[in-house]
């Protein structure tokens, strides 16, 4: 009987100290989470602003670019069945340009996330690769930190480059492939082209829609 009582006392003591440490752990993590949350959000925001400003310079707009956003859904042209963010730049209330963040789901090694910047006249402000898992040393040349491959895009528009151009050279288009890697550049070129078609179809609504919500624009009937 006493043995059993001892065991029970031991078990409850162990359980209690386990609970104590669990509470302590959660408490410490919560404390640091609350302490750092604001700063982390500010950092994320600044980082995102820097990437966005690389595409559309801060001097070109005067609105709150980062919060003047909507989310749009288009599986076909933007590569995701979730809303993708659209950041809109304006100056004195007039549209300057916008940045869409489409995805290329068919990368060599999974999803490639991009930022594609447009000026209001439809020319490309630039392209940035935000996240990818392409092969190091080959496909990762699409990453602006690895090579200047993405610098082929700025200044192009649907008017200046016919649809046949929107392929890598190997497929008969105008864009360089990377040595030893065709798939990664090919899907990025195609994703950028689709984003341009999307911008072209919905430009007015992209700028006019009130910030904050998620939209699925119907494709206008072809003339």
């Amino acid at each position, binding site marked *: 009987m006493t043995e059993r009582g001892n065991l029970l006392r*031991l078990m409850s*003591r*162990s359980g209690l*100290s*386990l609970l104590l*440490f*669990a509470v*302590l*752990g*959660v408490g*410490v*993590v919560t404390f*640091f*989470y609350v*302490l*750092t949350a604001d*700063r*982390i959000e500010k*950092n994320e925001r*600044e*980082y995102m602003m820097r990437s966005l400003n690389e595409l559309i310079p801060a001097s070109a707009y005067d609105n709150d670019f980062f919060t003047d956003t909507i989310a749009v859904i288009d599986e076909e042209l933007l590569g995701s069945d979730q809303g993708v963010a659209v950041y809109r730049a304006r100056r004195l209330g007039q549209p300057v340009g916008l940045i869409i963040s489409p995805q290329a789901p068919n990368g060599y090694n999974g999803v490639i996330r991009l930022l594609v910047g447009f000026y209001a006249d439809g020319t490309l402000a630039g392209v940035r690769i935000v996240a990818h898992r392409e*092969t*190091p*040393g*080959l496909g990762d040349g699409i990453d602006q*930190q690895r090579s200047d491959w993405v610098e082929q895009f700025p200044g192009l528009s649907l008017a200046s480059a016919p649809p046949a151009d929107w392929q890598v050279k190997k497929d008969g288009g105008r864009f360089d492939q990377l*040595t*030893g890697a065709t798939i990664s550049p090919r899907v990025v070129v195609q994703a950028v082209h689709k984003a341009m078609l999307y911008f072209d179809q919905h430009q007015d609504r992209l700028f006019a829609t009130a910030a904050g919500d998620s939209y699925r624009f119907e494709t206008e009937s072809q003339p």
Partner: protein
Amino acid sequence: MNTASREIIHTGLWNNNPALVQLLGLCPLLAVSNSLVNGLGLGIATVAVLCASNLVVSLSRNLLRDEIRIPVFVLLIASLVTVIELVMNAWFHGLYRVLGIFVPLIVTNCAIIGRAEAFASRNRPLPSLLDGLAMGGGFAATLVVLGAARELIGRGSLLDGADLLFGDIASNWTLQFFDPEHGFLLALLPPGAFIGLGMLVALKNALDQRHARLVAIAPGSDAASELA
């Protein structure tokens, strides 16, 4: 420095190197060692976590019964890594951008819980801290050597991306030995990580055997002790 401390350091860096001898923490090791800078990054983060976890575990070692020791260590380490990640994200955001992805990987590094259980739970805080430093150092050194070898063979460069870790002054530190197009791609892919680590383990064993032979031939001679 006394003999015990020297022993701890030598054990961590060489005799019982966590990556080359214990073969612990291979998941982060192999995943991240595709360049020198990445290897160094994960190495630094591991040293920091290992020191902190050894210290905390050692401080709490007398409060714990044997039965619940391991769950409590898991709790402590998980909380600690989360706190380190939050603090890095808030106050060292540039560094977090580079190392951030590695920090959660460290939780999967069994070297951490291994040292907590094998050393820190039985020793006083200061030796435990030193053990964390030495084991972390041994792990980091392996990562740096493997990362450098893979980057050099696969891409012909060293220190590519150093500016991410050291700031703008490092932007021209990258050494390019030959055109990346002629690199040996296998070295950068996961199989290359396994092959590279295998070669490092073999090299270490060969050095140890050579040393043992020398000691056996001429015990106590100058040549042998110099090599030690």
